[in-house]
């Protein structure tokens, strides 16, 4: 199956990962269809060469008609918040689009999931066949339900599905793992926990995009689940200090692993009065004390996929973007980015 002959539908194509994927697909696919919620985005994207359709996965009936005539469907929309909200997008949206994909003989349905589906109590190395959790945040629970649903459809209808479970995706525009960290560092709203020796399982956004494109056209990917992760071992200390360097910060406040839960409890209580986000939260503790490595062998062995952009190169790319966006101090040569330049 060749992408160059394919009409590709991307749901969630205006988000952080989706927008990078969309730009790559535009270079490789016959045509790229994006679903958008905002008609102003639609006008802009059409000028760039995309075909757009107004729709929202919260209202699957606005999305499913678009599936007709498409060869490949990427489902990158993701919901969080309450379990009801998360399920609406992650489960019900997936169900509707997947059913439409089956009804319209779509050749590949690529679903972006998450390694959060394994839960929190994990061994040192996790491969794709590790059992999925049955508890957790609404986001996690709904993603697990969606994966089960997809595999059920695969079994029942021989649906041509592929699931990719990315680790922490960093890069220009990553609200959680790039700009969010920059903001927290800038305002001293982050702690390095347990000397920062926990493992940050990362993947640079462009590497993930490459993997997503690969699984959409490679026959060997069919019916399989892959981790989207870079095997480069990066500690949280290295990751956070990488950003601190960009900000010219020499020191990140530290707290021991033992004291972290107490500090977290205090800061959480304090934040109820100050209405400011606390500098440490329960997720920080879980992430920064993590010793688990998500195995990258399967994608490497089956698809010959190997991420190309490690932490150092990733941060270099991020740095120039952050300067253009004015999120860190510009250099004398920096030209600030403006929305109109997206044309």
């Amino acid at each position, binding site marked *: 199956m060749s992408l160059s002959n394919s009409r590709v539908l991307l749901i969630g194509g205006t988000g952080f990962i989706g927008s990078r994927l969309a730009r790559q697909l535009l270079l490789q696919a016959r045509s790229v269809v994006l679903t958008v919620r905002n*008609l102003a985005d639609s006008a802009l994207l059409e000028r760039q060469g995309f075909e757009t359709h107004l729709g*929202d996965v919260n209202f699957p009936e606005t999305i499913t008609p678009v599936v007709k005539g498409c060869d490949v469907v990427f489902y990158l929309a993701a919901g969080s918040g309450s379990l009801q909200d998360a399920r609406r997008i992650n489960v019900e949206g997936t169900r509707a689009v997947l059913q439409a994909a089956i009804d319209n003989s779509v050749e590949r349905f690529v679903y972006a999931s998450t390694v959060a589906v394994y839960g929190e109590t994990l061994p040192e190395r996790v491969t794709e066949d590790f059992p999925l959790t049955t508890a957790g945040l609404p986001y996690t629970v709904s993603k697990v339900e969606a994966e089960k649903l997809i595999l059920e459809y695969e079994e029942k209808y021989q649906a041509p599905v592929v699931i990719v479970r990315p680790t922490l995706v960093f890069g220009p525009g990553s609200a959680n793992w790039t700009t969010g960290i920059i903001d927290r560092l800038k305002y001293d709203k982050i702690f390095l926990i347990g000397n920062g020796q926990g493992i940050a399982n990362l993947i640079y956004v462009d590497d993930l995009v490459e993997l997503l494109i690969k699984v959409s056209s490679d026959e060997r990917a069919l019916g399989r689940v892959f981790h989207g992760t870079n095997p480069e071992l990066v500690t949280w200390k290295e990751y956070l200090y990488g950003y601190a360097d960009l900000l010219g910060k020499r020191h990140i406040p530290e707290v021991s692993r033992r004291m972290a839960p107490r500090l977290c409890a205090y800061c959480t209580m304090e934040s109820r009065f100050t209405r400011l986000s606390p500098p440490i939260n329960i997720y920080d503790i879980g992430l920064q004390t993590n010793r688990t490595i998500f195995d990258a062998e399967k994608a490497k062995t089956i698809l010959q996929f190997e991420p190309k952009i490690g932490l150092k190169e990733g941060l270099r790319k991020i740095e120039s973007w952050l300067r253009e966006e004015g999120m860190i101090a510009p250099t004398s040569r920096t030209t*600030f980015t403006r929305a109109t330049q997206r044309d």
Partner: protein
Amino acid sequence: MTPLMLGVVGCGAIATKAHIPAFKELGNVVLRAAVDVRQDLLRDVQGKFKFSSVATDYREIADLVDAVVVSTPNHTHYEIARFFLDCGKHVLIEKPITTTYASTTELYETAEANGVKLMVGFSRRFSENIRLLREITDPFTPKTVFASLGGDIKNWPAVSSYRTSFSEAGGGCIIDQGIHLIDTAIWFFGTKPHLSEAKVTKIMGGEVEDNAFIRLTFEDGEAIFSCSSTFGLDSELKVEYDCGWAKTDLNNLRTPVTYLDERSLLCRATGRLELTTGGTDNYLNQARHFVECVRDGTDCEVSKKEVMWGMEVLDEIYRGYGR
């Protein structure tokens, strides 16, 4: 000083969540009378806000009040506002002022003839973060204003379903949400807009448009909007000019104004700046301004000229896309 006797006509969500609490907080206003066709709503507002009188017919309260807030379904605005203006009462009317340019003209003429204030509730003008954004970007031309507003209309705790009916609302997401964006652009540019592009859809198959894209051109730039009554859109307001930009949130008053200007030494040294405002409730600021205009006889910040420009745009959109 004698307090202002205030009447509220229409006790739905916007009145009980925004207007009444705002006026209640002002020391020089008495919540004199509330009107609604629904008895249960009247009982609730009387219990909660201690209005001294309630009525189901707005005509009954004319002698009791100095000014009224009209927050009823759109198609009733003209008739109710006209009645109070004719009675010599000041009127703060929830947007849209009416559903047509012609009826808006009549209301202003009536207000002028009776020497009373008529102000439209364009609450975004009274948000401190948006005012700051305007102040920062005001000196720069040409500029482009980008804005979007949207959310599922079903999540708004309306007591009436008039928004889904063309004859009652006068339109869909444009007259409901887009009108804020049109007014904001007019306020930012201060000149007459020209409608250069409008795209509307009825993706959910209703009677009124549920998604829209509008492009307005002004003497000194352009404004690009989208609004939706179905999909959740980022409520962002951004202004770009040749050497920088500034942005904030249209709904969250506490969102700082983020500002980046290539010519600013501070920005060149540190990057974007975040300017925080007090975040005082915009409806409180609006109510205070209205009372001051009534008391002091000063001009309302939402001027007749600007409102008429906005209504002209609305008329043109709905003429083109089927009123």
